[in-house]
């Protein structure tokens, strides 16, 4: 069995699966249940200065797909609503009882040096392995000048990180908000401030649905609603891109990354690691299915690694980073065509109508006298867009076959039709 041990910002963990700072890591009971279930670590629910905040009822809204499966949750819950000392006592207790598991203390304060430093020292004293600076919540706390209100200003990200680094000698993770125009600005700011790692992404600002009877956004609180933080598998693509951006950006390529965003299966986990993540954090999947969801994250990742011959996570970490390029760097001469396997086709016609209505009219539909429906790709019309292959309900029925067109590798900047290219040549 592959070795799933990993090290994030110098902290060793039995596996890369940590629970993110959120309701599942709110208190002793939850965290112990998580460790019993096999999670490698937790980032404790964000702590703030006393008096604790007061939370609303209700707190969650969901986004479902057509089949009524939850794709994402949005929440308007704030940080821990229990006294700081209660949390710190519980952290100390779990640390003693579970010495091989990681606990990171998440924290948040107003933009005042003393506030950050005092809180950081207090939490560090409870014995946590590291601190995570929550600069991300897009609801509630930002209205008080915290969370994303800080995370959206790179100078503040740097400043806060530096303040904390000045008073503690444990690793500091700066947690980044995705509600920005360019993740590199805040990642580089965190690095400048001395962060040992960045955690990303925090939740995406959102309204997940509108209650059409109450005519209010969900979750509805006494007839009204607010925007909240969106998470779950729906945000995974956004998180993957931001992790990749940091991994392939020269100044930040060595920055440690604790990746967060819609990780629900071992495959999601492997994808984040392939894009350079050092460790992983999970929340929504646990909220939807319980802590047992980690079982197959561990088993699946390990089985896949065995299959691929990877002994440790480091063996494949970042392997997809080098293949992640800007559009301009892709081979414009590459060509592929869809091929529909007539043996496995079940004649549903989904590929045809998708192509006919919304793509390139490249799938011919014919019906034999016996009523057999045949769908055939017209190679001359097919641009290799993949839409049909994605839509087909039968696994591996539609294959995208590369075309050997004998053309050399060519990028758009070097393409003869690129007017910018011509200009450069003239110069």
């Amino acid at each position, binding site marked *: 069995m592959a070795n799933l041990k990993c090290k994030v910002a110098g902290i060793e963990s039995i596996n890369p699966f940590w629970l993110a700072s959120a309701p599942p890591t709110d208190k002793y009971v939850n965290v112990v249940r998580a460790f019993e279930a096999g999670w490698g670590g937790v980032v404790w629910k964000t702590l703030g200065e006393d008096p604790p905040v007061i939370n609303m009822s209700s707190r969650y809204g969901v986004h479902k797909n*057509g*089949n*009524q499966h939850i794709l994402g949750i949005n929440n308007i819950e704030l940080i821990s609503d229990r006294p700081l000392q209660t949390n710190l006592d519980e952290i100390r207790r779990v640390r003693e009882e579970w010495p091989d598991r990681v606990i990171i203390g998440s924290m948040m304060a107003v933009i005042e040096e003393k506030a950050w430093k005092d809180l950081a020292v207090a939490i560090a004293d409870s014995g946590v392995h590291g601190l995570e600076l929550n600069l991300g919540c897009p609801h509630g706390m930002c209205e008080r000048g915290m969370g994303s209100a800080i995370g959206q200003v790179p100078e503040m990200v740097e400043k806060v990180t530096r303040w904390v680094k000045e008073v503690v000698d444990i690793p500091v993770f700066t947690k980044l908000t995705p509600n920005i125009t360019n993740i590199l600005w805040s990642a580089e700011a965190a690095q400048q401030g001395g962060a040992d790692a960045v955690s990303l992404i925090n939740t995406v600002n959102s309204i997940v649905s509108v209650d059409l009877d109450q005519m209010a956004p969900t979750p509805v609180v006494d007839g009204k609603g607010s925007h909240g933080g969106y998470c779950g598998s729906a945000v995974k693509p956004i998180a993957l891109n931001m992790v990749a951006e940091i991994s392939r950006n020269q100044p930040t390529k060595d920055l440690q990354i604790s990746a967060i965003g819609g990780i629900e299966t071992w495959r999601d986990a492997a994808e984040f690691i392939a894009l350079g993540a050092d460790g992983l954090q999970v929340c929504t999947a646990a909220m939807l299915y319980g802590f047992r969801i980690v079982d197959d994250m561990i088993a699946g990742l390990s089985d896949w690694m065995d299959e691929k011959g990877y002994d440790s996570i480091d063996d494949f970490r970042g392997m997809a980073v080098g293949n992640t390029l800007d559009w301009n760097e892709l081979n414009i001469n590459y060509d592929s065509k869809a091929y529909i396997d007539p043996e496995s086709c*079940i*004649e*549903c*016609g*989904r590929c*045809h*109508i998708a192509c006919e209505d919304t793509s390139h009219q490249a799938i011919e*539909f014919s019906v034999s006298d016996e*009523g057999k*429906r045949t769908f055939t790709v017209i190679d001359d019309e097919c641009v290799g867009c993949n839409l049909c292959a994605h839509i087909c*309900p*039968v696994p591996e029925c539609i294959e995208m076959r590369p075309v050997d067109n004998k053309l050399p590798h060519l990028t758009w900047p070097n393409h003869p039709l690129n007017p910018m290219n011509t200009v450069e040549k003239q110069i």
Partner: protein
Amino acid sequence: MSLGLCNFNKDGTNDDDAISKNFADLHEPLSLLQAKAEADRCLYCYDAPCITACPTSIDIPTFIHQIRAGNLTGSAKTILSENIMGGTCSRACPTEILCEQACVLNVSQEQPVEIGLLQRFAVDSLMEKNLEHPFKRAPLKGKRIAVIGAGPAGLSCAHRAAMLGYDVTVFEAKEKAGGLNEYGLAAYKMADDFAQKEVEFLLQIGGIQIEYGQKLSEQLSLKSLQEDFDAVFTSVGLGLTNQLGIDGEEDSRVIDAIQFIEEIRQTDDLSSISVGNDVIVIGAGNTAIDAAIQSKRLGANNVTVVYRRGEESMSATQWEIDLARKNGVNFRFFSAPKSFSSSSLECDYMRSENGSLVTTGESYKLTTDMVLKAIGQTFDQPSFSELEVSKGKIVVSENYETSIKGVFAGGDCIDSGEDLTVQAVEDGKQAAHAMDHYLSNLSGEK
């Protein structure tokens, strides 16, 4: 209700409770959870084979998508706009040879989407809501249409004609509307008086009047109807039951299966229906199966279906045959009834020789105290002597027009495909459009 039989008392006595359980709904309706899960399985095919397989061309992928999207009313409207008796069809259609047989999932998952149950779910949920009738009438045309027979074809035609702006009078020989939906389908397929509920629902469109107890006669003839109405639609079904032509057929213990089923459907007290102890059903269609299963469920000890050919030649669907077996019905194939006397039916053993059926010369006797004949019905030709008839069915053009101008026909009395409720509904619908076309052209000529 399960597909199998509820156990009776060991001493063989009828038990009211067991009987009523045996005649409850054959299929439990889907719950919302089940319906959503089943709807999820539909691939939303383009130009879907299930639509082609449905005689009424219901847009099945759309109505299932609407269930998935939480638009149950819209889903029911999609169904009913093509088939106003979508409720009955969802209960009685042999979906295994129609829409579900065409489902592409038969190929990939060996289990089609349960289209029938989903259709029932959608239609029932609309009917239970008691909303305003989902269809409106077009501006009235000031013309009148007569419909003969308030069965599925007649009612479907009446509803569509009313929708198109005609005033419709339906002449029905019996005391209730619904035709075979009310009198001929097995009771466990149409539980809770569904046929009448559907008639009530359909009449909500307005503009339809039903005259009960109106048999064709000298006073009420095609000719008189033609004089009183702008167009006539005849959907009289098959009024005569076929006879065996064997000795002893006149015995009071030898009765028509249709008559037996009608009694079951019309009684308020199932335990009052007299059923034999050793019942023989002669026939090979769905009516034979319905009669056999209902006999068993009423408490008959032995029920045997006797058919002169092999199982593969039966016109009942495999699903129906399997259902009969689950209910403990026995089958005797290659057995041609020869005579009935002193509590037994004598049958000739038959065999197939070069495709034709010949007797082996051997025969056997089956003990019986009740013989149900289900060997089909025929069109009551003499009542319509003025119409052109071929092979026992009224001849119609592709526009459902008979040999007499302005007289249209549909349902089991024409040869439009299988004798199924769903085909009758389609006939009625199409004939209404054809009559609209005919009457519009007439007005144009003026």
